């Protein structure tokens, strides 16, 4: 039947039928329209928006990339209820400085990125170091769909259905040594395919880091896909991090190296502007960026468009119940 024949751009051996493929397309699309109408008409109709969210998760992708469905995650906090950001906005408004500093640049320039073959090197204080192929990583644990809020340090946010599994699954497999206190992530810096790596905007390659307990937190996601498909290049293909309670730049894209270390690793933005971007970078409405308040945020594509009111930013981006204890006793104004 025709609705089975979606183009699979880069099929990588992880194609499974989605429920949207079993339901005839016309049927689920009309259902989606109906749900959108319901959600739009009756403000606060929680049921409608919840159901609408499911329909969105299946239907907003471009159907161009290889499918990567994930089972609904049961990790607490992994199923945010807000309306999803449109796939088009989430894939055309990106910070990925290797491809340009304008938010429209990555979608224009990231087509050159080659995501196969791809290996992630695990090294440092770890019992099983080595190079892990992307195919092996994809199969390492069951893929889950998680709907996270993403809050950018610039004061905007999105709601994105990611596909991946807890970074903890990988960490457990490679067995870090007892003295490993931090995890450092190094991302690709290939001047041939990444036109901006020649610029001096950042000290390439882009590096990020987490404390071991943050890295092991079940919400910390090693993501391979979004909206039921593999990651588009501009969103950090083929594998990235998503740390939903921290500002977006902590979620390193296109990772090539994961290093277990004893000392707090220096991170790209901290090196560039230490007074503005600390190591922790937890979303915190009470700690302003030196040039703007972090008390509110603009939700991209929440339907209100230009005249939508800004949302109040929540402590730890709304994940306080899940991650608050990681920072008990810490002065978050000092450790920003």
């Amino acid at each position, binding site marked *: 039947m025709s609705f089975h024949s979606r183009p699979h751009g880069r099929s990588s051996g992880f194609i499974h039928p989605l429920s949207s493929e079993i339901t005839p397309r016309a049927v689920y699309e009309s259902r989606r329209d109906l749900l959108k109408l319901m959600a739009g008409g009756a403000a606060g109709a929680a049921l409608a928006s919840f159901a609408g969210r499911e329909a969105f998760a299946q239907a907003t992708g471009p159907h161009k990339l290889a499918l990567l469905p994930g089972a609904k995650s049961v990790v607490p906090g992994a199923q945010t209820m807000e309306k999803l950001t449109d796939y088009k906005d989430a894939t*055309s408004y990106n910070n990925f400085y290797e491809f340009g500093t304008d*938010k429209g640049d990555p979608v224009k320039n990231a087509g050159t990125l080659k995501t196969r073959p791809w290996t992630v090197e695990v090294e440092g204080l770890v019992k099983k170091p080595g190079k892990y192929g992307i195919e092996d990583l994809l199969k390492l644990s069951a893929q889950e769909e998680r709907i996270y809020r993403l809050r950018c340090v610039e004061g*905007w946010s999105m709601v994105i259905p990611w596909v991946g599994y807890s970074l903890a699954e990988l960490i457990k497999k490679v067995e870090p040594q007892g003295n490993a206190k931090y995890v450092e992530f190094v991302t690709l810096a290939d001047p041939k395919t990444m036109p901006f790596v020649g610029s001096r905007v950042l000290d390439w390659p882009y590096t990020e880091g987490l404390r071991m307990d943050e890295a092991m937190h079940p919400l910390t996601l090693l993501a391979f896909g979004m909206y039921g498909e593999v990651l588009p290049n501009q969103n950090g293909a083929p594998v990235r991090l998503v740390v939903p309670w921290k500002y977006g730049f902590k979620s390193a894209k296109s990772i090539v190296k994961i290093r277990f270390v004893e000392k707090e690793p220096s991170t790209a933005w901290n090196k560039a502007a230490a007074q503005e*971007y600390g190591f922790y970078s937890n979303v915190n409405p009470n700690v302003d960026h030196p*040039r703007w308040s972090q008390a509110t945020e603009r939700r*991209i594509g929440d339907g209100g468009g230009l*005249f939508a009111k800004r949302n109040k930013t929540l402590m730890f981006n709304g994940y306080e119940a899940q991650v608050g204890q990681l920072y008990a006793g810490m002065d978050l104004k000092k450790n920003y």
Partner: protein
Amino acid sequence: MNKLLVHPAAKPVVFLLCLLPFAWLTYGAFTDGLGANPAEFLIRATGDWTLRFICIVLAVTPLRVMTKANALARFRRMLGLFAYFYVVVHLLCYSWFDMGFEWSDIAKDIAKRPFILVGFSAFVLLTPLAATSFNRAIKALGAKRWQMLHKLVYLIAGLGLLHFFWMRAGKNNFAEVFVYAAIVAVLLGWRVWHYASKRKPKETAGVRGGSEKSLRSSAG
């Protein structure tokens, strides 16, 4: 050139050209054409256009002298007022889309953040220039004092550049800032050079004697 510039249609045509960015932004705002974050796009685009109009208005005199197209001077006031128009729209967009017209928040933001304060100061300083742009104001002030007042534009350009520089500072993304700074520096540098070469007519009299007179008569 001069003929074209004094054509009765010239001013309306330039006026409409100056309105084009505004028309394009308004159209984009109502047709979902400003990308994922239309508010941010509007705030940045109107800031860009303010800086561009400041550069354009500063370029009028050098261009006029170099091309001897003296009729260019007819457009300087309008271009200056468009710089003011775009900074007002810029400020409105910030007050509306970023601050939701919460005046106390806006006041706090201006007081707390140097980069906002600098931008706001540039707007405040530009206001008397816009307010004294009609002929009666020039008469009332006297040409000399009026000219002194309007020399503030250099300070305003500097503050505008600093505002832009600071806004980009955290992200180390200065390419565009440097382009505008270079344009302003060249236009300012030309004035310094021009003024200096006028003040030493004797040293260069042999070479420049002829053009010296016309330069002086058209200086403004």
